[in-house]
């Protein structure tokens, strides 16, 4: 059994828009090791949710995977026929959505929705399903009596736990959590994340945690994958990426969270500008227009993702100067001067 559960190689996803199309994901490459939590982080529109949905192969009507591979234990789930993919859904790959309120059917009890998955997808009988449902509720910390309630009768945090219970129902290998705590208040956020961490350790599953909030990544992730404008710009062990960010974008992101180790300025420094319009993406590195360290080559040639230290990859032409750039990035003036 290899170390890597999922290997995404050069994934491309295109959205048909108007007359043309947008490559929302333009060559994403990253790995998900067995039994670890991988944080997929980036701002809105960077393509992280598209990647998450591409992994389930349930996407918007105008979206298509146009290239690359998604190797789940060696099988390319980007290419297998729908029938085969459907067999994998929920059994091997599960999904925790952003807002559990909208993702639970309002006219059925929670128990019905759990047993629906257990019986139809897991082949269980009624009694077996009941036992398992109780077990799952136990795991996520909800009392069994609440199984016969309807979704609207739960609070936000409880609903998210229900969603987690649902996701774990069939013992999947991989759970994709799409902004699972964004809609919750801070205290509940911590509780849910703790729960998630606990379950992950207990069951040995792999989790892809999609989020725009880097502090969430810092809180529970083992690995960090940073996305920008449809591409992966940096990926590696969480500590390495957050304490030794080697891509200017990651450096800038870190400045937005002063409680993380390493940001020296003490004031919040935004990255001026906005992500590029993906209908007409800039040539070369997509971050170049906003990057304080951009060189001429950055606007012409797209930097490849290369390994800086074991397990830590960066897509930047100036990756070798990372240490120096980090010093500069820690100063507010660097960013303001570029704006």
């Amino acid at each position, binding site marked *: 059994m290899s170390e890597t559960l999922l290997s995404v190689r050069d994934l491309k996803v295109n959205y048909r828009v108007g007359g043309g199309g947008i490559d929302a994901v333009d060559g994403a490459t990253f790995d998900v090791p067995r039994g670890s939590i991988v944080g997929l982080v980036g701002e809105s529109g960077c393509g992280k949710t598209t990647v998450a949905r591409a992994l*389930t192969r349930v996407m918007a009507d105008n979206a298509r995977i146009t290239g690359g591979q998604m190797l789940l234990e060696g099988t390319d789930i980007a290419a297998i026929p729908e029938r085969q993919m*459907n067999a994998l859904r*929920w059994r091997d790959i599960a*999904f925790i*959505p952003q807002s559990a309120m*909208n993702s*639970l059917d309002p*006219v059925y009890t929670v128990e019905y929705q759990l047993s629906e998955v257990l019986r139809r997808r897991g082949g269980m009988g009624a009694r077996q399903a009941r036992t398992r449902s109780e077990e799952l509720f136990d795991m996520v910390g909800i009392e069994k009596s609440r199984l016969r*309630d309807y979704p609207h009768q739960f609070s936000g945090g409880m609903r998210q736990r229900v969603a987690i219970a649902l996701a774990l129902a069939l013992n999947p290998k991989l759970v994709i959590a799409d902004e699972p705590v964004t809609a919750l208040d801070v205290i509940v956020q911590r509780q849910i994340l703790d729960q998630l961490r606990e379950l992950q350790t207990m069951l040995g599953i792999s989790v892809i945690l999609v989020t725009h909030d880097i502090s969430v990544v810092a809180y529970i992730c083992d690995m960090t994958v940073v996305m920008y404008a449809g591409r992966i710009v940096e990926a590696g062990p969480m500590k390495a990426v957050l304490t030794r960010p080697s891509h200017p974008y990651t450096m800038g992101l870190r400045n937005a969270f002063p409680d993380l180790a390493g940001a020296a300025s003490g004031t919040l420094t935004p990255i001026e500008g906005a992500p590029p319009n993906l209908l007409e993406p800039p040539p070369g590195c997509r971050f170049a227009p906003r990057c304080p360290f951009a060189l001429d080559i950055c606007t012409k040639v797209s930097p490849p993702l290369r390994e800086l230290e074991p397990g830590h990859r960066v897509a930047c032409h100036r990756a070798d100067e990372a240490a120096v750039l980090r010093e500069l990035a820690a100063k507010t003036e660097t960013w303001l001067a570029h704006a």
Partner: protein
Amino acid sequence: MPHLKAAANRALQFALVLWAVVTILFLMFRLMPGNPMAAYIDPTFTVEQQQALMAQFGLDKPLWEQYIIYLGNLLQGELGQSFRYREPVAERIITLLPNTLILTFSSLIIAYAFGILAGAYLAWRRGSTVENIAVPLVLTTRSMPEFWLGMVLLAVFSFWLGWFPAGGTRSAGTSYDSLWALYTSGEFLRYLTLPALTLAIYSQGLPLLLMRSNMLDVMKEDFVTMARIKGLSPWTVVVRHAARNALLPVMTSFAIAVGYQLQGNVVVESVFSWPGLGRELVNAVSASDYPLVQGAFLLIAMVVILMNLVADLLYGFLDPRVSHA
């Protein structure tokens, strides 16, 4: 307890509307031009009959006293004597009610069954040519006078092809022991077909468009996407989840549709000589048989008001968000 309070509210509203309609009816008939007694007394009644009616309805008393008596009589089911038939109005309209209800419900059930399935289908086939033709076509059915549709169907299927009889509920000369015997006879279906079909064609537009619209909305909901991500079969996703949610408003509209259907009944019953409340109302008005007019209208109004109440209650009952607040 909130449920009891809400239910009590609705019962009150029902009573209020019923009372108001009853009162409006009273005022209309009493205040109409001409002899106020003409509402209940026909000159051709015998003197004893006239006197009995005057006493029963207090026709020589002041208006407000008449009103009290009128309400009292209503509660006892006393609606006066029909001028034409010389029999109690209440009896007459009660015998006619089943015919009307059979026609209304059978046509609505067909309309809704078809409308729901077709609506769901059209939602599934969004943007296709079928949809582009079907929707305007449905609007057209909603734009035609029901009686005209009845006329066309009669002309084609009855007079030309001879497949169905031209009207009534049974052929002349036949008689049945009871209504039940009539309704369960095979012959009855032949008489029911064209009128029910006419009403059904007109009525299917609403559930069809409503179902389609709801399905389109529901299919975009997150829980439908989640059902697909869970790997559930298309049938489970579309029927068990999407349709079940989309159906909710359609079912409540059924109750209201009964009320509207009753109006359509009036003309269709006339075209097909169907012995129901609607046709009776029309005949009574033509013959100035005022007590019968009142009685028939009242009964129709009561069914409509009752159905409005049912619709309200149904919604609370079917939607867990309301019933399990």
